[in-house]
């Protein structure tokens, strides 16, 4: 199985390493033709404005939307913003997921944080991950966005203790405010592969 990682800007190499650890071939995607034959796509962390402008310049917006209509896409941090339908700023967005996000919702870099999250979906037994694991997921939030609102077809996967949403799924589309690729914990990557 080949999974694409959008490699316009950001920590795409970290996702490729996580995929490799799961025995999956991670393919860097920079142009529309690189999407051919992929079983899914990860949009990494980075700067969402930069990623959006590069995607627009090289004609990737429509091909990415087409891809996401039938194939799984997962956005981490900037990638989650890029998947959303509204980020309250004039910037290119795919609008594939029925979520709105608030960019830099926690403040600047000095407000970035790490925290353990309860993610019930990771505790479900799956073919790939086996029995499931109830341990908290160590989540790394870096100048992170929040998922402010979710539409009717969107399932909330994880929230902070105060109820603010940080992970959501809409069918085969997945958005996380945080960066599983910066940890050694493969569970979210396994969960995403389960959507393919």
């Amino acid at each position: 199985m080949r999974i694409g990682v959008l490699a316009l800007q950001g920590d795409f190499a970290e996702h490729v390493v996580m995929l490799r650890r799961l025995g999956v071939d991670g393919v860097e995607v920079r142009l529309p033709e690189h999407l051919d034959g992929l079983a899914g796509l990860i949009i990494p962390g980075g700067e969402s404005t930069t990623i959006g402008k590069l995607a627009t310049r090289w004609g990737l917006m429509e091909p990415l939307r087409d891809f996401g209509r039938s194939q799984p896409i997962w956005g981490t941090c900037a990638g989650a913003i890029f998947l959303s339908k509204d980020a309250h700023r004039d910037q290119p967005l795919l609008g594939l997921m029925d979520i709105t996000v608030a960019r830099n919702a926690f403040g600047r870099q000095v407000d970035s944080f790490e925290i353990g999250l309860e993610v019930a979906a990771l505790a479900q037994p799956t073919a790939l991950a086996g029995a499931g694991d109830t341990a908290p997921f160590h989540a790394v939030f870096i100048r992170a966005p929040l998922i402010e609102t979710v539409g009717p077809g969107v399932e909330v996967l994880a929230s902070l203790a105060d109820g603010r949403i940080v992970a959501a799924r809409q069918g085969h589309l997945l958005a996380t405010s945080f960066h599983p690729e910066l940890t050694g914990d493969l569970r979210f990557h396994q969960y995403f592969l389960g959507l393919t």
Partner: protein
Amino acid sequence: MTTVEVNGTDQKAQGTVALKRGLAQMLKGGVIMDVVTPDQAKIAEEAGACAVMALERVPADIRADGGVARMSDPEMILGIMEGVSIPVMAKCRIGHFVEAQVLEALGIDYIDESEVLTPADEAHHVNKHDFKVPFVCGCRNLGEALRRVGEGAAMIRTKGEAGTGDVVEAVRHARQVLGDIRRLQSLPEEELYTFAKEIGAPLELVKETRELGRMPVVNFAAGGIATPADAALMMQLGVDGVFVGSGIFKSGDPLKRAKAIVQATTHFRDAKIIAEVSRKLGEPMVGRTAASLPESEKLAKRGW
């Protein structure tokens, strides 16, 4: 590092090494641009910069003006922070930990402890572990890079020779760092101790670098990058991204050149794309060859 109790079971951690290094990981594959006004910062953001460096004078002007170069006016830095949504960096003088404290108090996203400013201490760099805000530092070789990481730097860049528009020193420093790592990987374990001593780097970081096959932090190129091809050259040599200082806003058409350098950094292996974005960019910054600089004007010699 500080921890905050969030509820009965969960601990929230801030200012950690993972968070400091992590922000640099988000900048990878991107271009960080020097800007001196909020308007320039907006142009940089529009062009696709992944971050901006807020400063009063770009290095080419610091060279031309002479005198002591210091941290920029907080008013000017705050104006840039308010003007854009991307991360904002700012420079403090080498060893000037109070300038660093001031920048942290402003809420800056990254501090560049930079040789472009006049050093405040000729023996010691800032103890960067004391800060919640992450630091980037310049280097010319692996030993210098790992000394900075040992002091707490969460990101490294080559020094190059800032404000010249001449990429030769950035190439020299990138080849030196990456060559040092290749040499390190070829050594038998018993030679690591002497290697660490020779390059003047902490043994643990030498071992970590050898195991990873790369620097333990993100490594950008800086100092003299002026064209899309310069940026792609540095990327092909193996750095994670580029800083462009004077090269953009000292050129004839800054927005066009800035966009072109962003495109070339993403598509750094695609010569057709680099050719396309390099067309009709207008005048590049007026360069000054690094070799023509008198020793006293070489900024890369600052820092130890």
